């Protein structure tokens, strides 16, 4: 390959320094060194070895963006030179992600969530206030120092409305409970500390703030044990499970997880032990472990709270899973919108490494395992496991066809175990207490406890841990019921890829099988409550817009289907159908069918499910009216 760079586009000193900090200084002029290596021309620097660095493309793009606020032509050129990536391909990757701008923009950007959970808690008011004070979204404000844009769900639904601040030359900051004053202050450079005062218990998990009346497994350290102290983690029982795992051996760990009947918590509810065993048995080496922390389903924030408040638990859990499946390398793919979780995990991994819990010869057992963090850049689709592989490999985050399945050919075409954060953090308890003890909680089809994400019109939004089989009504009671005591119009279960249930269905047991029985899905355990004041047509339109924006664009049913679905819903919401209401509703059904049947991945296959359930269960649009 002849690497032809963009003519006359040189990196700035800041861009060069940022990339060199990530990759080390270049050795040869071919790689971009300003002074040629004395042996230059004697050895080749642009061959296979250079091309195998392609997986560093996403971190490299982040480095350049973090330094100057956008990806310039010079910055992209230098990335391409260092990694031997053709500029067209690097541009294709960079332009795939919402958090990368490819044109100059002000150094501070506020991403203001206007997705469904924030929408019912004042996002529209916040956006219009910002428009008044700063001008339209996307325009430079405050003398060119800042701008604001709307954003899909930022995963801070319990403290809506939420804002993410992206800053050039400084770390990103999340602003929960945002109002216009706070956003304008933050854009002007006055940012409050990212870490608020520590309470006994976490504001994001209300159960932890009550006296010891809940038997919490997954949340037991949340808000109570210092998430930045390995000693505190060990003093609260940390790393006992890993020791036990080494005593059990890999097959023993898999047996316990199998006996526990642990199902994946990412949405698909696949038996965790089966995947683990498939990878453990795969003859091809190396094996990889991936923790999928690209939690982007609107209304989902459980993994964020775990990563922020109990990061060592995830590190230990990944080590256990890696040991059982025969992996020496783990990747933790975290969405780009979680700055605090990222910082806590980076700290936890460094601590664990320094103390011999990661790296070579862990705890003197001879087992080698390490974890590398990869940060997403604003793409819901990268939570799909095969798209996640593409993203880590430095390709566009496009899903791949299955088969082959990840356990056979996953990351870098090697056997790969992919688990969601919550699935993993169940494993230490299982290893320590045994599979049968774990399976004693919950139901026959859904064992253990589950983290639920309550948001919208509930009195105390947050994540709640409850045994599988708890009814929706009990869960809502736990969260203090509907805020203001108003009647429930609908509950969104499972996220944008899930569906709506009505007030008549509150006695549904929250299990994988129980929700399936009423035609709903537990999905990522989103429980978003809408009271009778909500314009449900507006919510459904936002969901349709979300899928249109987040489709990767690879396959026709999803790429164009999500566009046509949004167009038809807008027509119905505005009372101006093409033909008749009935014909537009029929069109929506036909689109739903082709998206479900013929899309490559789960995004397209579920892009119509919430829309369909809103029409069927809430009677939306049927009378030609919006709500």
């Amino acid at each position: 390959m002849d690497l032809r760079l963009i003519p006359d586009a040189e990196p700035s000193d800041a861009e060069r320094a940022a990339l060199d900090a990530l990759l080390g200084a270049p050795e040869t002029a071919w790689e971009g060194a300003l002074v040629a290596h004395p042996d230059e021309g004697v050895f080749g620097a642009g061959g296979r070895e250079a091309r195998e660095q392609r997986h560093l493309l996403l971190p490299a793009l982040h480095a350049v963006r973090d330094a100057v606020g956008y990806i310039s032509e010079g910055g992209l050129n230098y990335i391409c030179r260092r990694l031997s990536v053709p500029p067209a391909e690097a541009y294709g990757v960079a332009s795939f992600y919402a958090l990368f701008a490819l044109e100059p923009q002000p150094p501070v950007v506020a991403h203001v969530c206007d997705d469904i959970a924030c929408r019912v808690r004042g996002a529209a008011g916040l956006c219009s206030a910002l428009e008044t004070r700063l001008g339209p979204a996307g325009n430079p404000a405050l003398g060119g120092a800042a701008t604001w844009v709307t954003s899909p769900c930022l995963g801070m639904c319990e403290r809506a409305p939420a804002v993410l601040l992206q800053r050039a030359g400084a770390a990103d900051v999340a602003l929960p409970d945002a109002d216009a004053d706070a956003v304008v202050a933050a854009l002007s450079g006055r940012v409050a500390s990212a870490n608020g005062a520590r309470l006994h218990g976490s504001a994001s998990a209300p159960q932890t703030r009550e006296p010891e009346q809940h038997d919490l497994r997954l949340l037991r350290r949340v808000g109570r044990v210092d998430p930045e102290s390995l000693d505190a983690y060990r003093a609260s029982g940390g790393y006992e499970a890993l020791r036990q795992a080494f005593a059990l051996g890999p097959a023993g760990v898999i047996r316990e997880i199998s006996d526990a009947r642990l199902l994946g918590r990412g949405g698909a509810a696949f038996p965790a032990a089966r995947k683990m065993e498939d990878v453990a048995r795969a003859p091809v080496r190396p094996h990889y472990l991936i923790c999928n922390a690209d939690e982007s389903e609107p209304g989902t924030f459980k993994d964020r709270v775990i990563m922020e408040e109990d990061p060592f638990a995830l590190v230990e859990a990944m080590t256990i899973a890696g040991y059982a499946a025969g992996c020496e390398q783990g990747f933790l793919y975290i969405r780009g919108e979680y700055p605090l979780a990222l910082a806590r995990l980076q700290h936890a991994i460094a601590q664990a490494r320094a103390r011999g819990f990661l790296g070579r010869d862990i705890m003197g057992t001879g087992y080698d395992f390490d974890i590398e963090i990869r940060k997403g850049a604003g793409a819901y689709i990268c939570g799909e496991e095969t798209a996640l592989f593409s993203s880590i490999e430095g390709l566009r985050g496009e899903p791949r066809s299955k088969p082959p399945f990840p356990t056979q050919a996953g990351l870098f075409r090697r056997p790969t175990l992919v688990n969601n954060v919550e699935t993993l953090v169940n494993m230490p308890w299982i290893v320590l207490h045994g599979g049968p003890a774990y399976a004693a909680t919950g139901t026959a089809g859904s064992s253990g406890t589950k983290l639920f994400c309550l948001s919208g019109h509930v009195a105390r939004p947050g994540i709640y841990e409850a045994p599988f089989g708890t009814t929706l009504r009990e869960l809502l009671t736990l969260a203090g019921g509907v805020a203001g005591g108003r009647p429930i119009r609908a509950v969104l279960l499972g996220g944008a890829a899930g569906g709506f249930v009505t007030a008549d269905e509150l006695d549904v047991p929250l299990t994988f099988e129980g929700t399936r029985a009423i035609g709903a899905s537990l999905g990522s355990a989103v429980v978003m409550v809408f009271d009778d004041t909500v314009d449900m047509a507006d919510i459904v339109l936002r969901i349709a817009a979300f899928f249109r924006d987040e489709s990767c664009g690879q396959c026709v049913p999803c790429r164009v289907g999500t566009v046509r679905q949004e167009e038809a819903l807008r027509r119905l919401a505005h009372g101006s159908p093409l033909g008749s209401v009935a014909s537009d509703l029929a069109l929506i059904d036909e689109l739903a069918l082709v998206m479900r049947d013929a899309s490559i991945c789960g995004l397209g296959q579920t892009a119509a499910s919430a829309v369909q359930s809103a029409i069927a269960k809430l009677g939306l649009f049927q009378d030609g009216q919006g709500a």
Partner: protein
Amino acid sequence: MSVAPLRLVSRRTVELTIDGQSVRAPEGATILQAAQSVGIATPTLCYLETLTPVNACRVCVVEVEGSRVLVPACARKVEPNMVVHTNSARVRHSRRMVLELLASSVDLSYAPAEVQGYLAEYGAQPERYGQPAAAPDRDHAHAGHHTPVADGYAATVAQPVKVDNDLYVRDYARCILCYKCVEACGVDAQNTFAIAVAGRGFEARISTEFNHILPDSACVYCGNCIGVCPTGALMFKSEHDMRAAGAWDESRQTRTDTICPYCGVGCTLQLHVQDNRIVKVTSPQDNDVTSGHLCVKGRFGWQFVQNRGDGRGGGVAAP
């Protein structure tokens, strides 16, 4: 990488059922190949024998019993005892919708008769999505944001033709995003990587880095992207200009096979000639030497044939 036809001496075969008939296919064959072997036609758009399947267009989907969703025939390998339906209601629905969705958003008027045939066969009605809307600037669309079109309109990929060199034009209003040009520019043929898919979702598009003009890109003008484009989005400038002038008339064209005179490889060239002038050059896809691919000289370097000066077709340049 070009995929060589499966011609190994002794291949295991797999028995499966397609539309009720029992079919034997070599292990490793695709459902598409197995169906073809018994005369069952399958529509394809993004598939080409000489390129790695990307299974992006989904027009070839078939129903496989036991599979929750439809599967792409072009990429899915046959398995023993597979039961495949290529003409069920689900299959026909998905094919019709895929064709409708494409035809409602992309200008398919230059697509070959075969594609027009699919639209008719499956009863696609692209007009039922509304009036085609003018598209905003797609080249600078930011991932994750869009502006909806007015009620009654259907979003399209309409945009001006890119004419930035003398050899070929890029008319992305006709692009169905089949990825073929990207594959031909990349590892499947040319290894030049001048173009890639950029952007995301409906705003995904084929682009050079930062949408720079081709002369500033890595393009070597082999034209292999034109050779694989199924909809006329990529086109010889000569053809584009003749069409603009209303002079393009395939019924008056002849095709003559010859061997490229430039080097010792011996690529087969197919000269498309109208009114005794070469109007474009291709190479047959099933040619063992080229697999349909050429280089800049073979594809575009034919003007000398016509530099005669005597007004007659001598073929030898005047001294």
